[in-house]
């Protein structure tokens, strides 16, 4: 018989540790959907989701039940994502054009009649341009544009103020445009060297 999250949590707190597996089963797809926007590698993504569940397990006593369990998990996932982006930022300082296919480079070109990109190619291009952004800006713009969340929801998930979220979103757009321009120039150079 299906029980709600609150009932399961009460059982876990009373020592039924194995019931946490049911909570993982219920919310794993949601966490994969949230975190896959910040990590494209499958193995690393699984590590991030596991880390989120571990952090939730350690802090289970702090969950007061005022908000749904999934909202609380999402907040933890966002913190995990920000930490991960900070670590990744230290590793990748330069934009790697070699990861982009010819279609993406063509799309970046000046031809306004150029067709669209596949969703995967667009996401890869966006991921490259996002390297210009700070982790907090990256999270805000991803939640707003790719997940379609409202400013209020982003404030709740990140713990930031309304103004801070709006400012970060604005800065992120400016930096992304600049990043795409840089990629465009680099793409042209690359095409030139091929000829």
């Amino acid at each position, binding site marked *: 018989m299906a029980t709600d999250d609150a009932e399961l949590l009460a059982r876990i707190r009373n020592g039924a*540790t*194995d019931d*946490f*597996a*049911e909570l*993982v*089963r219920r919310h*794993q*797809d949601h966490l*994969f*959907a949230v975190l*896959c926007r910040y990590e494209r590698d*499958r193995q690393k*993504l*699984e590590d991030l*989701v*596991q880390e989120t*569940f*571990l952090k939730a*397990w350690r802090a289970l006593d702090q969950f007061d039940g005022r908000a749904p369990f999934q909202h609380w998990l999402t907040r933890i996932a966002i913190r995990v994502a920000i930490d991960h982006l900070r670590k990744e930022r230290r590793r990748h300082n330069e934009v790697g054009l070699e990861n982009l296919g010819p279609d993406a480079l063509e799309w970046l070109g000046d031809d306004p009649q150029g067709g*669209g*990109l*596949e*969703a*995967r*190619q*667009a*996401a890869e*291009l*966006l991921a490259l341009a996002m390297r210009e952004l700070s982790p907090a800006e990256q999270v805000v713009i991803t939640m707003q*544009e*790719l997940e*379609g969340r409202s400013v209020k929801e982003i404030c709740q998930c990140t713990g930031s103020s309304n103004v801070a979220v709006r400012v970060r979103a604005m800065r992120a*757009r400016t930096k*992304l*445009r*600049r990043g*795409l*321009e840089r990629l*465009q120039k680099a793409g042209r150079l690359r095409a030139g060297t091929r000829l």
Partner: protein
Amino acid sequence: MKKNRLEKLFHMAKGESVHKARTGFEIRVMRAIRQEVPAQSASLLDQLNALFPRLALACAMCILLCLSAEVVLTNASRTDLVSGVASISEDWLFATKGF
């Protein structure tokens, strides 16, 4: 870079299918949780608590051994253990002239 180019990129990227968990992913998470449970509860008090029945039995055995030694020595020499130990220390341990 035109403004709507970025919006187009967002729109196209939004359509990317999201990853789903593999079957049995919860087993991996539960394994990680179980691995960290003993590490967290390995405090000195917890260790003593785990050893409690054995430590209590060892103490009871020690007390019984002392009591039986007291009884045997008292019956054998018609003196109690305390006076026997006092006499030994006077004769041997604190002897000034040696044997």
